[in-house]
């Protein structure tokens, strides 16, 4: 019996040491501040305690599909042209259906040619069905469309990761948000300046070069532009607004008619740096294209000397210029009174790459650092008060056995914090509430056991038999009560987000630890105590 107690005591001490290590690891000293620092290093605090921002972003993946089908429209057009088929109209008739392309007005003589071109080159990615009057509709296959959207989401996550790194945030979380479709969860600890974050994250940073239709004429507003064009915009053209000063120094904002398909686009930019206009000394962004895009661009400009070209950033014309000669793989953005800070940010955005689609903010939670600090103080105060109240009650109500329960409770707390330290789980404010609740619920097990022991003692059993019976009878009830609460916590963990998840984690860990402390540890303390007593001598309970 004695050796048995010894082995079990060693187990308990080993567990204690392991979990204390989990909380503090090896601190730099034993002073209060060193221990506090070690504690903060091992137990991760959630945003609601540390302060920071929590965002849910929606990636407008339909835009990525739209960009893809825009390219397909262009390539179908050129395929038809190559095969000498004139007159056919290739378009995307429904603005709400970016996955939908229509080929119409095909001359009857070419119907079979068009059909075979579409079948040969596009049937792997599109479902093709013939319509009335020699027309075809191409609908993107769902699997292709989903792949495309998924890729857009992944790309967006990657780009946002790179961009938040430049904000100097430590330990940001950027991951798909499971509750929404194509949404991203962003957590930025220690950041509270939404304006800046928003600029950096939301900028699509899509830089494109477009051909200007006509001789570079522009209109002061969209209305007059449409009027001048006869109220009709060709399917391959679009009206885009410019920033002030796009055409020349001090020119007002205006609308241009551009070819829809860019000469080169977002992913073709290889590098961008803040620079200075050598003539005026104004800040500008110098950008460089990838070699493939560069040679394409140089060929295109060589063939289109005298035409006008527009540099478009995030759907705003930045610059309009006449093409005077072949242009290589570089260019610059200036004008519009661009500021030094904007030049720096813009260069960074272009370097990190364009977002595949634009992004909308769905949810934003910002916790200021002062609130986080207050929450920690309040959480700790509530824990300490609750813990002491329970401990004192147990001592008063169960006397000797109360010490036993208090020891077990203390160990329970150590194991719970050690768990948090080892697992890297995040401690949130509701998580602290979970710790407090664990104390209250954990002591329930002790009460169940002690009450049963008292009952057995009243029935006239010897102390050691009563302890035996008490533990044996209470065991099933304890398992039952733990299972029900842990089931609740598990459901919370599955359905919950952020802070609530933190609560579910601490509650579960705490109750699991409680099975060990209330049943095993408390039993060992009883046995050790009983082994020092004469047989039949009463115990304090």
């Amino acid at each position, binding site marked *: 019996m004695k050796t048995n107690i010894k082995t079990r005591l060693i187990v308990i001490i080993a567990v204690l040491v392991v979990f204390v290590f989990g909380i503090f690891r090896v601190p730099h000293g034993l002073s209060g501040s060193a221990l506090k620092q070690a504690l903060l290093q091992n137990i991760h605090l959630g945003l609601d305690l540390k302060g920071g921002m929590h965002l849910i972003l929606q990636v407008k993946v339909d835009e990525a599909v739209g960009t893809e089908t825009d390219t397909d429209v262009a390539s179908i057009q050129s395929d038809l042209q190559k095969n000498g088929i004139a007159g056919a109209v290739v378009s995307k008739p429904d603005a709400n259906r970016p996955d939908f392309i229509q080929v119409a007005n095909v001359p009857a003589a070419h119907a079979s040619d068009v059909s075979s071109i579409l079948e040969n080159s596009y049937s792997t990615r599109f479902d093709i069905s013939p319509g009335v009057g020699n027309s075809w509709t191409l609908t993107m296959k769902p699997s292709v469309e989903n792949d495309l959207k998924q890729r857009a989401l992944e790309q967006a996550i990657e780009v946002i990761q790179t961009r938040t790194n430049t904000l100097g945030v430590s330990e940001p979380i950027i991951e798909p948000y499971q509750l929404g479709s194509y949404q991203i969860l962003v957590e930025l600890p220690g950041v509270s300046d939404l304006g800046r974050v928003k600029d950096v994250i939301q900028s699509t940073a899509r830089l494109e070069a477009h051909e200007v239709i006509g001789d570079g004429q522009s209109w002061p507003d969209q209305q007059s532009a449409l009027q001048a064009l006869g109220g009709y915009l060709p399917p391959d053209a679009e009206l885009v607004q410019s920033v002030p000063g796009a055409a020349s120094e001090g020119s007002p904002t205006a609308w241009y008619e551009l070819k829809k398909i860019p000469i080169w686009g977002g992913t073709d930019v290889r590098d961008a740096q803040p620079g200075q206009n050598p003539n005026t000394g104004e800040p500008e962004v110098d950008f460089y294209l990838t070699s493939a895009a560069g040679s394409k661009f140089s060929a295109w400009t060589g063939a289109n000397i005298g035409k006008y070209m527009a540099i478009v950033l995030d759907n705003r014309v930045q610059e309009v210029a006449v093409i005077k000669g072949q242009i290589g793989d570089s260019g610059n953005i200036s004008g519009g009174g661009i500021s030094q800070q904007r030049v720096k940010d813009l260069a960074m955005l272009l370097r990190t790459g364009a977002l595949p689609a634009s992004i909308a*903010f*769905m949810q934003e939670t910002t916790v200021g650092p002062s609130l986080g600090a207050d929450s920690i103080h309040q959480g700790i105060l509530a824990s300490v008060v609750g*813990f002491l109240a329970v401990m004192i009650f147990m001592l008063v109500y169960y006397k000797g056995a109360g010490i036993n329960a208090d020891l077990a409770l203390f160990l329970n707390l150590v194991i719970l914090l050690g768990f948090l330290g080892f697992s890297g789980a995040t401690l949130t404010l509701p998580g602290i509430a979970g710790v407090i609740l664990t104390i*209250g619920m954990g002591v329930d097990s002790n*009460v169940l056991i002690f*009450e049963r022991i008292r009952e057995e003692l009243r029935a006239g059993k010897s102390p050691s038999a009563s302890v035996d019976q008490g533990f044996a009878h209470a065991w099933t009830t304890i398992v039952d009560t733990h299972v029900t609460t842990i089931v*609740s916590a598990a459901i919370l963990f599955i359905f919950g987000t952020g802070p609530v998840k933190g609560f579910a984690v601490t509650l579960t860990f705490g109750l699991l630890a409680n099975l060990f402390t209330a049943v095993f540890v408390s039993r060992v303390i009883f046995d050790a105590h009983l082994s020092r007593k004469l047989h039949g001598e009463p115990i304090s309970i």
Partner: protein
Amino acid sequence: MELFHDPKIDWLGKKWYFLGFSLIFSVAGLLSIFFWHHLPLDVDFRGGTVVRVKFSAHPDADRIRSAMDTAGLHDARIQQPYGPAANNEVLITLSLQATSASAIDQGRATIVNALSQHYSQNGSQAQGKIDLDNVSDSTLASWLQQNDPEHLGNTVDAQTRYQNQATAVVHFRDDQHSGIIDSIDDLRGVVDPAVLAALQQNAWLSGFSVRSVEVVGAQVGKVLQHQAELATLYSLGGMLVYLWFRFELIYGVAAVVACFHDTIITVGAFSLSNQEISLTVIAAILTLIGYSMNDTIVVFDRIRENLRLSRREPLAALVNRSINQTLSRTVLTSGLTFLTVLSLFLFGGEVLRGFSFALVVGILIGTYSSIAVAAPMLVAYQDWRSRRGKAASLPAAKKARV
């Protein structure tokens, strides 16, 4: 020490009082949910904008109101005081309609701008002075760097020196003074004298600080609401299945009915007191579903044990005896958990107020219901069966007790 020494209370004899008590509270809650306050949902579910602002002195609601009106936010709701009056905190809420989908943070930006314009003293803001109550440490550091009050030049040492002082100011403000600096003179000793002089000259204190912001779009709110409903149903279902597996179906049904009763009364309490239900409140309710099952299990376990020991005893008497035998542990376990929850309610702060309120109400009701709802249901079920001439006794247990 012993609170209950061999109690002999006739619980089942009081079942009509219990029924009346439960009915009054559930019906009052339901009436409030349907006809009075409805379900006051937090911004998490409802969508909208909530900005929590702390002021250095007692905030003047009229002044905030006029600041919001000037900014065109006529439907802004100003809740004041928020939490203890001594905290000087105010909650400014915008409805979902005012939180447009395209620019979700516009409302927040407007609120903050309106406040800083309104609280700007003698045009301090216009003069480009820096607001120490709302500045971030990186902005303050670069401001110091630019003004260079210690004439250190643009060196790495100077940068670190200013950065450290900026961090010290922000730490002083956020960690030690809840986000508000009372007077710039208080920074004596926190920063170098030269920096202090520069701050006294070129910084000002707006006297307010934005403590937290929450902006939720309609779509996210709806998804969360749906999730919360699902989670609650799954929890109740999970309990039913577990008790069915451990005891008999009727025990499971009785326990789940008791739980449902607790949930309705707890949610009703939120409606009656017009407190908002947030995500953490849902977490508290789910926890309660698990926890209030505990007392019920303790009583049921004893009923089952007694059923095996004495098969002749009338069920009502047996259930009474079982409740009395377990009364002290039922009250003690709930009481101790209640102690911790109460300390959370009293000291845990505003953020956890709803959470701890749900637990405070729920634990009281949960304990009551395991004695007054769950156990009498077993007896009622047996009476009903015997009236229909079926087997009279309650199934003891499927298997021997482990």
